[in-house]
């Protein structure tokens, strides 16, 4: 119970810290737990802070604060840096008793290869990306090698409906990349395959006023390794998006998994904030 109280307190502090980042204008119609084919404009910074809490069987918990910076280099070219921070409340030998550490820094270059604006609101966009997870992890939350990755994502928005399809392949080059969904490590290459749907709850139709939009989101996030371990998560969420900020709130519920030597994930919660500079 002590671990849970500490986990809750830490999560609250992380969310409060994220909220304090609010300063200026902001955001994008993106899913909570998968990439979207959206890119910052040239010269524009988009910081994104997400706090996640993973609750596993036997009262084991992992807290994650993910800080992501995107920057638009050119109209269809952007770069991003993503650094997770972890606090673990696992049983031994995994990080326990609130051990804290950095995760692996992920550096990605994204190229938008498709942009078909079909109407006032309707659009279809596609992007491909490549990058690597760099061995910056500490405290058992990172890896010892550079793990390259490639991926692609397709985003369609038609009226009140938004669709996302994404796939990514990560080449594991060392013995211990840290994956929260597996509560630890895998030595196999792995793929992420994600499907997402967003429905605009409000406003029913856009007008001339600058009103925030509310979206209900539903994602299917999956990870599968070449060693046949896999996990599929159903991720409902709520997204509030305004011209100057976006707030996201959601949960992730396992629907199917086959994971070796790791505690089963019961549920994960996510709170996020995105800004634009």
């Amino acid at each position, binding site marked *: 119970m002590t671990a849970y109280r500490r986990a809750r307190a830490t999560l609250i502090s992380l969310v409060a810290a994220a909220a304090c980042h609010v300063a200026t*204008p*902001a*955001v*994008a*119609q993106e899913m909570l737990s998968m990439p979207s084919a*959206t*890119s910052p*404009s*040239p010269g*524009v910074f988009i910081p994104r802070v997400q706090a996640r809490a993973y609750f596993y069987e036997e009262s084991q918990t992992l807290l994650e604060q993910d800080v992501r910076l995107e920057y638009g280099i050119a*109209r*269809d070219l952007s770069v991003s840096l993503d650094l997770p921070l972890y606090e673990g409340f696992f049983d031994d030998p995994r990080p326990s008793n609130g051990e804290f550490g950095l995760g692996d820094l992920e550096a990605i270059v994204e*190229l938008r*290869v*498709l*942009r*078909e*604006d*079909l*109407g*006032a*609101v*309707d*659009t*279809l966009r596609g992007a491909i990306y490549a990058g690597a997870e760099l061995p910056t992890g500490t405290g058992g939350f990172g890896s010892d090698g550079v793990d390259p990755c490639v991926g692609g994502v397709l985003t*369609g*928005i*038609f*009226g009140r*409906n*938004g*669709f996302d399809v994404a796939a990514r392949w990560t080449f594991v080059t060392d013995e211990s990349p840290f994956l929260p969904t597996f509560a630890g490590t895998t030595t196999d290459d792995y793929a992420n395959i994600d499907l997402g749907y967003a429905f605009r709850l409000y406003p029913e*139709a*856009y*007008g*001339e006023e*600058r*009103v*925030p*939009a509310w979206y209900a989101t539903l994602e299917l996030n999956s990870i599968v390794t070449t060693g046949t371990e896999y996990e599929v998560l159903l991720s409902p969420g709520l997204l509030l*998006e*305004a*011209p*100057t900020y*976006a707030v996201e709130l959601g949960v992730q519920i396992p629907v199917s998994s086959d994971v070796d030597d790791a505690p089963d994930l019961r549920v994960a919660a996510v709170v996020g904030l995105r800004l*634009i500079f």
Partner: protein
Amino acid sequence: MKQVLSWNRGNSSLHFAVQSRDIATTLRIALLSTTLALSGCATTPDAANSASSDSISLGAVDTASTLTPGKYALVVFGMSCPKCISNVDLQLAKITGVAHPKVDMKHGIVTIEVIGPEQPSREALFRAIGDAGFTLREIRTLKTSEAKP
């Protein structure tokens, strides 16, 4: 697809480039058709016409190379979320002589006012909207008596 084509040309593989372009075009058309059919999409192929019948009264299409002082309506496609407004504001703010942008997402119209001695070029506006992440279809004058600030 443009990037893929330019890479192909850079490798001097003209025949392969032509083939790739055909394949890419075919794939793009098939993808668009499938997506639109699946979504039951009723797109707005002429936002300007729908806008003119509603709250904004548009004038003639302006094709001059530079915009003289006055009010204009930019017919923009692809502005699908509130964030788009910020992107448009940020990019238009870089153009000297453009003031008071106002985004009507319902109709895909961005109204602007051209002021001062600087006369922004059409090219600058197309570039700015493109950099914001959207497609500028055309620029129209706003009828003075019905123009909105």
